[in-house]
């Protein structure tokens, strides 16, 4: 007997893999960018199924609502996007193959070696409080380092724009 979580799991899996193929193989760059949205959305669905509600919303807000919109925005400003010279299926060199295979092997090793919790909660528990405590107590140094990195990125972007004047 399949429950609702299982149904949704298969739904999201098919969505992420199927639409991921469109992202990778579509000849139209902009359609790939639009399709990426569904992939990101499906990943958010996985987070919900794992009980990480806050993470799921962050995924939608930051990746689907922010990064992907900016990506499309940038694509729209590119000239001649509808007629690419080469399909994204074309062979792009030995180094790319090596990089891809290495990444895949690395991910497979990590996924197989780690002792991942497979517990699926029946009821959604609030995760925000614990996340906040962890971020601001235990992991405050990495958190601050990351925010410092972002600050540096913002300042350098402003400097680059200012130089253009």
């Amino acid at each position, binding site marked *: 007997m399949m429950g609702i979580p299982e149904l949704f799991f298969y739904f999201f899996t098919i969505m992420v893999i199927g639409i991921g193929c469109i992202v990778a193989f579509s000849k139209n760059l902009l359609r790939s960018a*639009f399709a990426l949205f569904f992939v990101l959305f499906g990943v958010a669905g996985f987070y919900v199924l794992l009980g990480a*509600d806050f993470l799921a*919303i962050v995924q939608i*807000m930051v990746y689907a*609502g*922010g990064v*992907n*919109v*900016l990506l499309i925005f940038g694509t729209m400003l590119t000239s001649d996007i509808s007629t690419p010279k080469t399909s994204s299926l074309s062979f792009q060199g030995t180094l790319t193959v090596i990089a891809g295979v290495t990444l895949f092997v690395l991910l497979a090793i990590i996924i197989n070696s780690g002792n991942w919790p497979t517990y699926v909660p029946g009821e959604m528990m609030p995760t925000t409080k614990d996340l906040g405590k962890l971020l601001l107590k235990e992991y405050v140094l990495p958190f601050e380092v990351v925010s410092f990195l972002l600050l540096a990125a913002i300042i350098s972007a402003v400097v680059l724009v200012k130089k253009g004047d």
Partner: protein
Amino acid sequence: MDATLISIGLDPLTAKITSMVIISVIVLLAFVTIGGILTLVERRISGFMQSRLGPNRVGPQGALQWVADGVKLILKEDLIPEGADRKLFRIAPYFCLVGIFGTMVVFPWGKGVIVADLNVGLFYFISITALVVFGVLMAGWSSNNKWSLLGGMRAAAQIVSYEIPVGMSLLVPILISGTLSMGGIMASQGWLPWEWMVFKSPFAVLSFIIFFIGSLAEANRTPFDLPEAESELVSGYCTEYSGFRYAVFFLSEWANLFVLGGLTTSVFLGGGNLPGALEGFTILSVLVYLAKVAVVIFVVIWLRWTLPRFRIDQLMSLSWKYLLPGAFIAFLGQAAYMLLTQHTPIVQSIIAVLMFLVFVFVLIRFGLKVRVSINEQRIPVNSPASNVS
């Protein structure tokens, strides 16, 4: 609901899915009706403000005009322009609709009347509207039209930039109530005006102002309706749309107005809270809530027919140079305020009552001024006086 369906002989899974579908249909119907009625309300109010009649022929006082409009739009031919990206053109309106409809999941219609009180409800509310940006961008690009493209890009730039001050300003209510769930935020307020979130501290007022301006911009309302500025861009991203797809855009725009009013009410204006003696009257709570939403919607419509449109650079500098720093100040200030007054709740209440009194004073002064201008400038509709110039 599940239990009722199981008792009439359905297995749990089917019962669960059926009840989900039924609730969705009810909410969708409410959503469509509200969106339709609001188009009429806006046109009537704008008619009143401009000394003209507005739609008043279909039904009593034009009350059925929105049904007639809907039928007309559905019967019209659904044109797709030559050279458009047909697939994207077809699905774009539904992104806008789903983005707005999705917020209905966490919409607190009153005390205890909520489809799903998520633990991260407020956050969900502001992130699911990302779908609207998406639909607008898609419509703008797939129309293969300069005006549409410009409208879509303006909309994306505007909504993405205003999302940041809106999100930051909502941190203040989250700080005060200590929860992200819509029901929890509503429960942390009282029914008296000085128990509302907006009067809880001076910084809450600041965050309310920033939130309100920012969400006007996110809902593409005048003075921030640059994505469909008709004097510059024909009608922006929906230029090429006709028939049912145009109706969907239209509907989601006006439903967005309701969503704006609803979020403002439930987070800042006390939601559907009732006095302790009346606790438990759910229908009364819903009515109180809807009345507050109606007031907010009236203010938004009023702003639309009063203020001129911004320029795009003014729009961007308002967001990044004024609203965003303001939201940071509100957040830090609120944190400091809570630290200073956490052991003296009496001081907090006194400040809240004082702020409410100041607000009433400002409102009365403003009302007197408005009354003078209404009395002096009112021209009877369709009277000979209106032809004198």
